């Protein structure tokens, strides 16, 4: 695939790098001083952090508890299922990523670049993380090797799909998108067991596994519910409208932690014993219902941004009300609402930390349990730092993904430089 030059302007007209640096950092003397001060401050903080991380911090707590942080008390004998799932996810992610690059949007230039700049940075990050982090933590060699394999599978498939993806037929491309829900269900089966696999009770799921599982479950189900609620709120049927309004305002008026407490403590009284879903799923449903109310408002703002004429035009073309909504209005509304919705998803991911307050062993809860281990007392700083990095990584990748999606969905934008 041809790789066009980075800039359209001839290089003779572009200012020298030094000049550009001066212009961006110190256009005036006062700005220059401010830049210098900030750079000094950042350097100082960075150096302090590095000297603490290398000199004083004791990373044994992480090295010994790495699997606990990742999967909680998941039985050792069954952990191969999670590695298998991680492998499948890496393959599917690499495949989808590569195909996105191989097939840019039809209404824009069909020229795809195999490795745009963002992709190169992301690939470098993935590779370095998989190589350096396990090595720095001195994990056992088989564990390190598994991380390398995962990263290698992801990047190799990303490359292969980007390289040869154009040979796939359009219909085959749709299948790749459909693979995600299938993979999700398969993941639930792999994690929970049943149908031939030994069961692993949800009480034993923990750490990053539980955080990501609950967050993704809540995102996947709160989205359709949120769209329905937003439509309900704009419905002309009074019962539907008022029902949606009451629901949304009730949920938005109550803090998540109270709803979680209600779900955990009071549901046990209301439902006959044995009928109530177990604690993990109860929390998951509370998260779904909570997130749906916020998403509904985001979607409603998107719906409000679609001009009335769109619906009327669609109806006058002979589409039914439902067809007009599904094919014309909702896609436009969702595109407008996308940044807000992703913001809600990121907030939802961070809200899962509240689960540790109701005694579930999500990433934060597991870390707190480790901090209480008498052998590792006084090592909370190391753990909190790692938590911060993990949560930041998850949220940042959500944000990056959403921005890529936004660019892709925006019909007005120029083809991206990547």
């Amino acid at each position, binding site marked *: 695939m041809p790789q066009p030059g980075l800039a359209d302007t001839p290089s003779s007209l572009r200012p020298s790098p030094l000049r550009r640096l001066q212009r961006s950092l110190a256009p005036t003397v006062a700005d220059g001083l401010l830049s210098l001060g900030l750079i000094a401050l950042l350097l100082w903080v960075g150096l302090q952090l590095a000297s603490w991380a290398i000199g004083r911090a004791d990373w044994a707590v992480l090295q010994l508890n790495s699997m606990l942080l990742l999967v909680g008390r998941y039985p050792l004998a069954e952990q191969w299922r999670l590695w298998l799932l991680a492998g499948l996810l890496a393959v599917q992610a690499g495949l989808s990523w590569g195909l996105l690059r191989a097939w840019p949007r039809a209404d824009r230039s069909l020229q795809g670049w195999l490795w745009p700049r963002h992709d190169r940075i992301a690939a470098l990050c993935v590779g370095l993380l998989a190589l350096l982090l396990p090595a720095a933590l001195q994990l056992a060699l088989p564990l390190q090797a598994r991380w390398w394999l995962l990263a290698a599978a992801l990047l190799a498939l990303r490359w292969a799909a980007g390289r040869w993806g154009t040979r796939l037929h359009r219909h085959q491309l749709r299948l790749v998108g459909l693979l995600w829900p299938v993979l999700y269900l398969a993941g639930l089966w792999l994690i929970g067991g049943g149908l031939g696999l030994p069961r692993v009770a949800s009480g034993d799921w923990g750490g990053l596994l539980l955080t990501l599982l609950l967050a993704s479950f809540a995102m996947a189900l709160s989205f359709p519910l949120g769209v329905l609620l937003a439509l309900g709120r704009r419905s002309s049927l009074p019962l539907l409208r008022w029902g949606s309004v009451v629901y949304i305002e009730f949920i938005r008026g109550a803090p998540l932690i109270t709803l979680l407490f209600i779900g955990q403590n009071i549901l046990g009284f209301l439902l006959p014993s044995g009928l109530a879903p177990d604690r993990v799923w109860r929390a998951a449903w509370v998260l779904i219902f909570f997130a749906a109310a916020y998403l509904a408002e985001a979607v409603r703002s998107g719906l409000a941004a679609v001009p009335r004429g769109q619906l009327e035009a669609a109806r006058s073309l002979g589409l039914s009300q439902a067809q007009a909504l599904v094919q014309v209005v909702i896609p436009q509304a969702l595109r407008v609402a996308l940044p807000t919705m992703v913001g809600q998803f990121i907030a939802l991911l961070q809200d899962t930390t509240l689960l540790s307050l109701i005694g579930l062993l999500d990433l934060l809860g597991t870390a*707190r349990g480790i901090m209480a281990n008498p052998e590792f007392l006084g090592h909370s700083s190391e753990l909190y730092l790692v938590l911060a990095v993990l949560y930041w990584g998850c949220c940042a990748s959500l944000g990056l993904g959403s921005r890529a999606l936004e660019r892709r969905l925006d019909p007005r934008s120029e083809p991206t430089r990547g």
Partner: protein
Amino acid sequence: MKGFETVLRRLKALVPLALLLAASGCANDSGGGAGGGVAGGSGVRSAHMEAIRSRGQLSCGVDGQVAGFSSVGADGRYRGFDVDVCRAVAAALLGSGEKVEFRNLTATQRFPAVASGEVDLLSRNTTVTLGRDAPGGNGMSFAPVLFHDGVGVMVPVASGITNLAGLQGRPICLLSGATSEQALTDAMRRDNHSYVPLKFSTIDEMFGAYQQGRCAAASIDRSALAAQRTTFADPAAHRILPDVLSKEPLGPATAQADPAWADAVRWIVYALIEAEDQGITQANVKAKLAEARTNPKLADRRRFLGVEGNLGSQLGLPDDFVVKAITAVGNYGEIYSRNVGDGSPLKITPGPNRLWKDGGLLVSPPFR
């Protein structure tokens, strides 16, 4: 007919609701005999114990985040003083200390979780108080106190402070919202001393400030003081004052609605203390049992270990429940030492947590 059944089902659904009201302290009446066990002669019936047996697992509520009492090891295994109590009960009832499902509970969750039957046993360093025990309060049924804690004060040895009077007008680090704040204020006011409270929201922040020298002393439960001291660079440079500012007797609890189950837990807990009294340990329990079997003169031990009599079945437990419990976790002294005492990094001096004959507060009524 069908309508009648529906009404009946609705009514049944309301019973736990009444229990909830009682548990949250809104009602003065306890909501009474819902699913309570009936004890009678040797055929003890307890809905709760039957449910645990059919489930094959004891559901035990712990904190999960208190050093020495309950935490998760690197192998994913729960360990701690409270955890061992759960395992002892599971072993006595089900024959194995591994048949436990641990649930982390927060302070606010713990009583509703017991009342709703979500956990069978609460072993979560819970202070026994009237309000928590009373039917008009939380409606718990407490097993004997297993850990006598109390609010204490820690000072740097170098400061030369040896009693509360030395803290007159000095800043003291506290955990906001903890009982220690109230206890310290009461104690200081009683002696007409004043102090400057510095409150922190987490225990890490609090001891961070203490180690930076921002306060002259730190005050919290003595077990937590001892636990945190082990993390200091030089633990010997800090002293825990002898003053105990409040009593915090911690004990396991079950729901009041099932007295037979509460009795069983109570006597399993007593058995841990009695085993220490009789010198029966995890290591020698087999030998002691064999000895008791062959020597009819050891009547006390024969009854205790279930060789003779039917003490266990009177409680609805196997007659050898003591042997099972001790085999699983050892006697009280062993549990203490392994988790919070000399055998652990915490090294909390037992103080009152010793047998009555050694000058402590622990005593078990006779097994007969």
